[in-house]
C-alpha cells in the first residue's frame, strides 16, 4: 500500500464568472518513508493539492488517499494521523513557543511528554526561547516551531507546503537535514517548494506547472534525461550578451545562472560554432565558453519550456 495515492485530481476555482483551473488531472503516488518533492513556480497548484490531501478542500473529481484512507470518506482518520504545515506561518503569535506546542499536542489528544523523542532534536533548538511569544521568533525559529507542532502527534505522513520559503540559506539547509532524519524514523514526507535546488534533496520529485504534473522521477533520472548540449558562457558585458544570444534564431534557450549564462541550441553539433559567431558580432571582453553538465534547474527549465 502506498502512503499517498493521487489519481486524476481536478480542481477548479470560480473567480467571478471565469473558471480558473488549479489542478488539471494530477496523478502520482508516494511510497512509505519517502521524501517526495512537488516543485513548481508560484500559482502552479501546489497549495490546492496539499489542501485536498489534508482533507480541508474537496476536489472536483478524481480520487486521493492518504495511508490507505480516502480523503473524502475517511477524512476523520486522516486528520488524526497527518501533520500539516501550511505555507503561511499559522501558529498563534500571541501564545508562547511552549503554549503553542502544548496546544497542538492537546488538540491531537496527546502530550509533549509522550512524543518528545520525535520532536526533541528540533524543539531543543528553540527550547531556550520557550517563553517567548511565537510572533516574536525569527523566520527560521518559526519554521522549527511549526514543524514541531506538525510533528507532536507522531503523524505517519507529513505535509509541508513551501516550508523553506522566506527562510535564509543556512536555516534551509538545516531544515532539510531535519527532514532526512525524520525520514529515517519512517515518516512519509510530501514537501512542496519553489526552490529548484532543493529538488536534489528529495527521493523523488514531481514538477508541476499550471496544474499539470510534468514529470515524476528521481532527481538523478531527471538530470540524465536531459538530452541537449549545454554551454556556459561568460563575458564582462553579461546583459547585452544575453540579449544577443536570445535574439539569435539558432538558440533554443538561454538562462542566467549565477556568473554564467546557460545556453542550448537547436542544432547540438554546431553549438560552439554558433556561440563564437554571436560573440564575434558583438563587442565583448573576457569571454569564457565551456560545455557543462546539466543540473536539476536546467532540466526543469527545459521541461517547463516544453
Amino acid at each position, binding site marked *: 500500500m502506498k502512503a499517498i495515492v493521487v489519481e486524476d485530481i481536478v480542481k477548479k476555482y470560480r473567480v467571478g464568472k471565469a473558471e480558473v483551473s488549479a489542478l488539471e488531472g494530477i496523478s502520482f503516488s508516494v511510497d512509505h518513508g519517502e521524501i517526495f518533492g512537488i516543485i513548481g513556480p508560484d500559482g502552479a497548484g501546489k497549495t490546492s493539492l496539499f489542501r485536498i490531501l489534508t482533507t480541508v478542500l474537496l476536489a472536483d473529481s478524481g480520487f486521493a488517499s492518504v495511508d490507505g484512507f480516502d480523503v473524502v470518506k475517511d*477524512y476523520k482518520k486522516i486528520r*488524526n494521523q*497527518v501533520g500539516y504545515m501550511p505555507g503561511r506561518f*499559522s*501558529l498563534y503569535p*500571541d*501564545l508562547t513557543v511552549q503554549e503553542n506546542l502544548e496546544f497542538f499536542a492537546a488538540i491531537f489528544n496527546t502530550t509533549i511528554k509522550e512524543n518528545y523523542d520525535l520532536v526533541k532534536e528540533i524543539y531543543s533548538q528553540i527550547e531556550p526561547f520557550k517563553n517567548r511569544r511565537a510572533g516574536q521568533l525569527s523566520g527560521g525559529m518559526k519554521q522549527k516551531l511549526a514543524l514541531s507542532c506538525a510533528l507532536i502527534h507522531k503523524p505517519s505522513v507529513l505535509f509541508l507546503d513551501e516550508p523553506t520559503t522566506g527562510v535564509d540559506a543556512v536555516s534551509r539547509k538545516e531544515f532539510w537535514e531535519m527532514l532526512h532524519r525524520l525520514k529515517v524514523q519512517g515518516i512519509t514526507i510530501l514537501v512542496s517548494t519553489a526552490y529548484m535546488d532543493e529538488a536534489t534533496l528529495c527521493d523523488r520529485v514531481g514538477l508541476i506547472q499550471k496544474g499539470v504534473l510534468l514529470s515524476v522521477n528521481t532527481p538523478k533520472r531527471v538530470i540524465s534525461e536531459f538530452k541537449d548540449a549545454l554551454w556556459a558562457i561568460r563575458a564582462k558585458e553579461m546583459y547585452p550578451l544575453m540579449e544577443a544570444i536570445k535574439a539569435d534564431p539558432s538558440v533554443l534557450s538561454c538562462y542566467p545562472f549565477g556568473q554564467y549564462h546557460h545556453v542550448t541550441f537547436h542544432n547540438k553539433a554546431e553549438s560552439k560554432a554558433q556561440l563564437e559567431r554571436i560573440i564575434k558580432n558583438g563587442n565583448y571582453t573576457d569571454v569564457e565558453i565551456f560545455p557543462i553538465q546539466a543540473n536539476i534547474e536546467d532540466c526543469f527549465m527545459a521541461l517547463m519550456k516544453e
Partner: protein
Amino acid sequence: MRTLKFLLRKELLQIFRDPAIFRILFIMPMVQLLILPLAADYEIKNINLGVVDHDHSTYSRKMIDKITSSGYFRLRDYSATYTQALHAIEQDKTDLILEIPSQFERNLVKESESDLLISVNAINGVKAGLGAAYLQGIIHDYNQEIRMEWIQNLRFNPLPIIDVTSTNWYNPNMNYRVFMVPGILVMLVTMIGSSFASNNIVREKEMGTIEQINVSPIKKTQFIIGKLVPFWILAITVLTLGLILARLVYGIIPLGHYSTIYFFASIYLVAILGLGLLLSTYAQTQQQSMLVSFFVTMIFNLLSGLYTPIESMPQWAQVITWFNPVSYFIQVMRMVMLKGSSLADIEHHILAMLGFAIFFNGWAILNYRKRSG
C-alpha cells in the same frame, strides 16, 4: 473534555495577554454607562418661550408669570408682533410662541371665553410635543384658578369638573435613570457579546490558524463551545460590573432578585454569542464581520424599545421586535428592576430566548465548515 479544556485555556490566555482588548472590554462599557444615561434624559427643561402680548392686561401678565415660574420655560423673547416673534424662532432663539390677543382680558370677563395661539418649532419633535403639552397644562391650570376666583362664593359648582390625580406605579418619581440604565447596560453587553466573538473567529481565519485547527481531529461543536464559553464569561463579568456601577452611581437596586437577571442573562448571552459566531462563519475578514455586526446591533438596539416604546412603533416594526433578542432582555431587565418580577413572570421571555439560542447556535454549527468545496 481534555481538548475542550485546552481550547478554553488557550482562548483565555489570548484574551488576557492583549492588554488593549482587556481595557477596551472593561473600561469602555463602564465609561459609556456613566455618560449615556445622563445624555438620554427625556425630561424637557429650559424650553425657550417667546411671548407676543397684545393685551398688556393683569390677566395676561399673571398668566405669563405662571408659565415662567413653572421651571420648564424661559422667557427669551418678548415681541410686539407675531412676525417679530416668528423671526426669533427662525434664529433659534425661541422654541415656542404664545400669542395673547388684544381684548384677551375683556373677552374673558365679558364673554367668559377667549383665544390663545401657541406656535411650536417642530424641528425637534419630542421637544415640540412636550413643550406644547406643558404649556397647555399650565394654561389649563390658570383657567381653573380664574374660575375659582369668580365662582368661589357659590356653594356648588355649576359646571361638573373631572379632577384627575395620577400616581406613577413602579417608578413613583418618574426617574428616567432607573428606566434607562438597565436598558443601556443590556445594549453594551450585547455589543460586546456579538461583535467581539465574531471578530475572534474571523481573526483565526485571517491569521491562517484556523487551517491548522481544521486539519486536526477537533470536532465542530468542541471548537464552537471553546469560543462561546470564554466570551460568555467576559460578558457576564461586564454585566456584573455594570450592575455594581448602577447600584453605586445611580442607586439602582432591583426590586426583584439579581439571580433572575443572571438566569435570563446566561441564556441571553448564549443566544447573542451564537449570533456572533454565525456572522463569523460567513465573514472572511475582520472588516466584514465588524461592519455586519455593527449593522445588526444597531438595528437591534434601535428596535429594542430602549429609546422609544415598542407599542408606538408601526405594526411592521413591532413584528420585527418579536425577533429581536435585545428587546426581550430590556423588557426583562426593566421588569425585574422596577416591578420585581420573578422567574414565573418572565417565563415567556425565557422560552423565546431559549429558542433564539438554539436557532443561532444550531445555524452557526451547521454553517461552520472544516472543509471547503
